[in-house]
Each structure stands twice: as C-alpha cells, then as structure tokens.
C-alpha cells in the first residue's frame, strides 16, 4: 500500500510545485472537410482526381514514391478517367531502369543507369533508388510512400488534408520546434520532417480551377485516397446490389419460415 501511496503523493507534490508542466503535444483532430467519396454512396470526383494527380506529379513525386500504382491503373474504370492513350503517354514520360542491353550493360559509358520510357505495365518509379538515398536528400528524414498513406493513417484523407494545410501556424508558448523540423500541430509530436509542400499556384490546373493551397490539398487528398483504394466505386456499387439481394432473400426466407412453422402453434 505504502509503495503506491508514497510515490503517488510525491508525484502530486512535485506536480503542484512545478512551475511549468510538460506540454501535451498530441496532434489536433483532423480538419472537418467534405470529400466527394465520403459515405456509402460517395464516388470519386474525376476532375478532382486528375487535378490531384497533377499535384502529386508536379510537387510530391520529387520526394515521395507511389510504389503500388501502375500506369495501367490510370485508365481503369472508377478512377481518373484517362483513356488508354493518355495513360500510355503519361507512362512514356517516365524513365524506367532498362533491362540489360545486348552487350549486358545496364549503365552507359559515363556510369549513368540506362533507362527506357515507361509502359502501361510499369509501376510509378520511385524518386530515390533506396532508403539511404532518400534520407541523404531529406536531412535524414524518409519521405513515406504515398500509395497507401490514406489507409495507413488514422483519419485517412482528412488527416492528409490537415497535414498539408497545417503548416505556417504559430507554435504555442513553451514549445520549441526541433532544429531541422517544422511546426505542424496536426502531426503527432508537432515536429514534422517535411517542409511545407504546397504553395498557392504550385500547379496550373488545366481546367482553370484556382490553385489555392486548400484546393491543391483537397485534390491531392482525393487522388491519394484513390491510390489507396482504387476499387472503392466498384465495391460500393456491388455492395448496394448485394444488400438489395440479401434483403429480398431474407424476406422470402422469413415468409417460408413462418409458413413452415405455422402448423405448430
């Protein structure tokens, strides 16, 4: 008993006498923002997906890989709405490490890795060849892969949106930002290794939408949700049919059940 009471009393005494308490650096709850894909009937806004892809391509892909997404996913139904030709063109714009040539070379005379244009079967190539290179180019931080980030974070798309729009805030008194990190209260511990990634007009949207930071964030969060869950629309569509079928079947079975048992009572 004393072993519990004494330290407890000591702790309470210390707390009462301490002039400054440790700051609770739990992350803020995600921002309340609407997405087209929310809810059981939500779908992906194709225009937002394409704009978000543009943000990923022109801003995020400098540091973040998209390992699980292949170029052929860009023209699949329920997704970005590109045609096969458009997806092929996007793929061809990327340089993929080439297979050995007839001489067995994989590097050219200057030691550079030989490459070939991407094809539909390829996945998006990562910006860095390995973790060590990624860390060396980012002050020791490892930019995580984004192809599943919406599934891999509590709060999903809302979390991603909150993070990328959560910079440029003033830290509260008593909080010192770790050197080399940035203040972002939506990130656990408030110190994030990523510098603010978005600025207004970082991209020029081809559909003329105004590229505010919020718009860019909203679009890239939509795109990244699709990257994590490309089958969402198909899943909800089939689900709706399945539930209707099951309700009808349940109704029929219920009536059969009552009929079979009717003679017993």
């Amino acid at each position: 008993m004393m072993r519990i009471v004494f330290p407890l009393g000591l702790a309470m005494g210390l707390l009462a006498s301490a002039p400054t308490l440790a700051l609770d650096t739990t992350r803020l709850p995600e921002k309340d923002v609407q997405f087209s894909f929310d809810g059981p009937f939500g779908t992906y806004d194709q225009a937002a997906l394409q704009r978000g892809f543009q943000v990923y391509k022109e801003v995020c892909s400098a540091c973040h890989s998209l390992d699980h997404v292949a170029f052929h996913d860009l023209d699949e139904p329920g997704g970005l709405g590109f045609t096969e030709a458009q997806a092929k063109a996007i793929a061809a714009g990327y340089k993929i490490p080439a297979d050995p040539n007839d001489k067995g070379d994989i590097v050219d005379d200057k030691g550079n890795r030989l490459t070939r244009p991407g094809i539909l079967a390829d996945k998006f190539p990562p910006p860095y060849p390995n973790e060590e290179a990624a860390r060396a180019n980012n002050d020791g931080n490892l930019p995580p892969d984004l192809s599943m980030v919406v599934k891999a974070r509590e709060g999903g798309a809302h979390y991603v949106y909150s993070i990328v729009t959560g910079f440029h805030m003033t830290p509260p008194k008593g909080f010192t930002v770790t050197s080399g990190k940035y203040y972002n209260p939506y990130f656990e511990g408030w110190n994030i290794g990523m510098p603010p990634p978005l600025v207004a007009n970082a991209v020029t949207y081809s559909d003329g939408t105004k590229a505010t930071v919020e718009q860019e964030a909203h679009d890239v969060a939509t795109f990244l949700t699709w990257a994590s869950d490309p089958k969402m629309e198909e899943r909800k569509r089939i689900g709706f049919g399945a539930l209707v079928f099951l309700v009808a079947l349940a109704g029929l079975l219920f009536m059969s059940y009552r009929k079979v048992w009717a003679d017993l009572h």
Partner: protein
Amino acid sequence: MSGQSTYTPKSGLEKWIDQRLPLPRLMHDTMTTFPTPRNLNIWYTFGGILTFCLGVQIITGIVLAMHYVANADLAFDSVESIMRDVNYGWLIRYIHSTGASMFFLAVYIHMFRGLYYGSYKAPRELIWIIGVLIYVLMMATAFFGYVLPWGQMSFWGATVITSLFSSIDQIVPHLGTAITTWLWGGFAVDDATLNRFFSLHYLLPFIIAGVVGLHIWALHVPGNNNPLGIDVKSPQDTVPFHPYYTVKDAFYLCCFVFVFAVFVFFAPDFFGNPDNAIKANPLVTPPDIVPEWYLLPFYAMLRSIPQKLLGVLVLVGSLVTLIFIPWLDTSRVRSCRFRPLMKQFFWAFGVDCLLLGYCGSQSVDAVAFGIPLVWAARLGTLYYFAYFWVIMPIVGLIETPKKLPASIAQSVLGEPAAAPAE
C-alpha cells in the same frame, strides 16, 4: 437424440450406396429427421452460422493462397497485388479479413449462449470441451493469419506474442529462449517465421473442420439443449430438423450475411488497424501494438500483470479455466432463465469481457476518469477468474431457482397448470 435410424432407401441406387457407404443415411438421420427441441431461439442458429463461416474462410483462403507469396520481401506487395490486380481480389481479400471478425463474433455469441443456457452441463461436457479446443485453434489460426500480410502490426504482434515464450526461461533457464528460437526459425521474427506461419495457417482450418465434426457428433448423442434447459421428455417436445430448423437457420444465416456484407462493402477496414497498411519494419516499433479486436480481452489480461511470466500464466489460465466449467457450475438447473441470481453475474461477466476488450485496445499507460486503465484491466481479470472459480460453484449451491416447466411441449403450447416460460 441418437437412436434407431429411420432411413429407408427408396431406389435401387440408394440401396446400393447404403450398403457400401451410408452417407445418405447419415445425412437423413442427422439433418433431416433429427429430433430437435421445438423451442430453439435465435441464439441456437450460430452453430450453423459458424460452419458457414468456416467454409467461407477456407474457400476464400484457398483462392487467396493462389496469389499470395509467403516471403518477407514479397508478402506485402503480393497482398496489394491481390487488392489491385487480381480479378475481384479485393472482394476475396475483404471477405476473408472481415470473415475472420464475423467468425469470432459468431463464436462469442455461440459460447455465451452455452454459458447462459447451461449447455455445458451433463451429459454435454465433452461438446463444451471440444468447443474450447475449436476456440483455441481459431485463435491460433487467426494469429498466424494476421501475420501473413506482413504489415507493421503483423510483424510486431508476432514479435510480442512469440517473445512471451521466452518467459519460460524463468522456470527452466534457457528453455524459453530455445523454444522461441525454434518457433522463429531464427533470432527474431523474420522470413522463416512468416513461411511457417503460412504453412500452419493453411493447415489449422482443416484440423478445425475435423474437430467440428467431433463437436457435432458429440452433440448428436444427447441432442440439443434448449432455452428451458430441461430434457426432451416425449416426441411432442421435438420437431424434425428439416424443414423446421433448416428454414429457420437459413433465414438467420441470411441476416448474418447481410451484416457481413455491410462490413465487406461499406466498411472493409473497420476491424483493421491503419498501421498494418505499412510494410513491416524491424527497426521501427509502432507506438501502440494491438491485436485484432477478438483477442483484446486476453491481451488486456496479459498486460495487466506487470511480471512477464505471471502474465503468460494468467493468459493460459484464462483459457484452461474454460475446460473446467462443466464441473465448476454446481447448479442442478441448466438455464439461466430459471436462475435469477446467476443471471445477474452472467450479464456482469458479459460487461466484464467488453471492459477487458476496451482496456486491451488502449495504450498501456492510458488513463480514464483519472484512473490508469491497467487497474480496470486488473479488476476485470479478477472478475473473469472469480466468475468461474468462485461465483459458479457458490451460486449453484445457494441460489433458489425458479420452478421449471413440466415439459418443453407444455411450455410452448401453453397447456394449463404449466409454469410460463420467460
């Protein structure tokens, strides 16, 4: 009730088969004419639902195994390939992962039914014990299965639970470490571990299927218990399994599948943990390591004991305790419908399991209403053991049960001078 078979083969073919392998006879006797108490309610449909769940898991599992790669470098990516590239792979995977949760939901309802109606009491003790064996096999299967996607939670959950065996070092020096190394196939959870977990995960469901066969066989000797807990006294107390219970089970199964479908199609990641969408990294430990929800109460009991070996013994003890229930309960009345005092403790036990589950889901140093949750977990663990080792024996002796009805038929058909069932 096992007794004389009433099957008469009608055609020449039926006679020929019956003389060589009497499977149609078996089907007839166990699933068609089998005399079943006429008063079984919704809680009695979960046995059939569980068989359905096992079938679903085996079928979806076999299809997944056609595409899954059990290698530490490739496993995670192979699961993503199933989700994105394999035709309806996302559906098969989600049915399998949601199916595991539905399987456990059904087994908990099934077990609580057994506790409430005294289905473990003589002469059904072995059905109960075989059921405990099935439950433990399910837990092992689910544990191995969760490791296979090789996400952060897969890896670290495997590390935490397999490391528990090293606590045996405190009983026999070096034996625990030797066992853990043997389990791992290496010096930490790694590729060797993943491969053998895949092998075992594929094997155990078929062992479960065999044990389920024993479970049903053991059931068919005395026949089903019923909500009144009183024995079948005459043929008026029973109805043939078909069509009465085939249609009733079909209806409730359909309702169950509806709930299943809601999760699969509209909340497929509901039971999951976001950390498992990150590839396993032996160098980065997630801040909170938690198992799937159905293992949380046991996780809470394990963590509530600060000493590693004692925590393991409590965990093992919590499962071994279940085996002794048929002898711990001293009541001569089976069903809690007629046990007003035991009923209260039963519901408290249910709440206790939910409380333990909640404690298991929170981090070790979590605090609620100013009290560290670990103290709630300790109280919860205490009640868990007290329910079986103290309350069951004592309440059975001191309780005054309500008057039992004369027979099932009388209770259902409401003849005069019958005590009404609740």
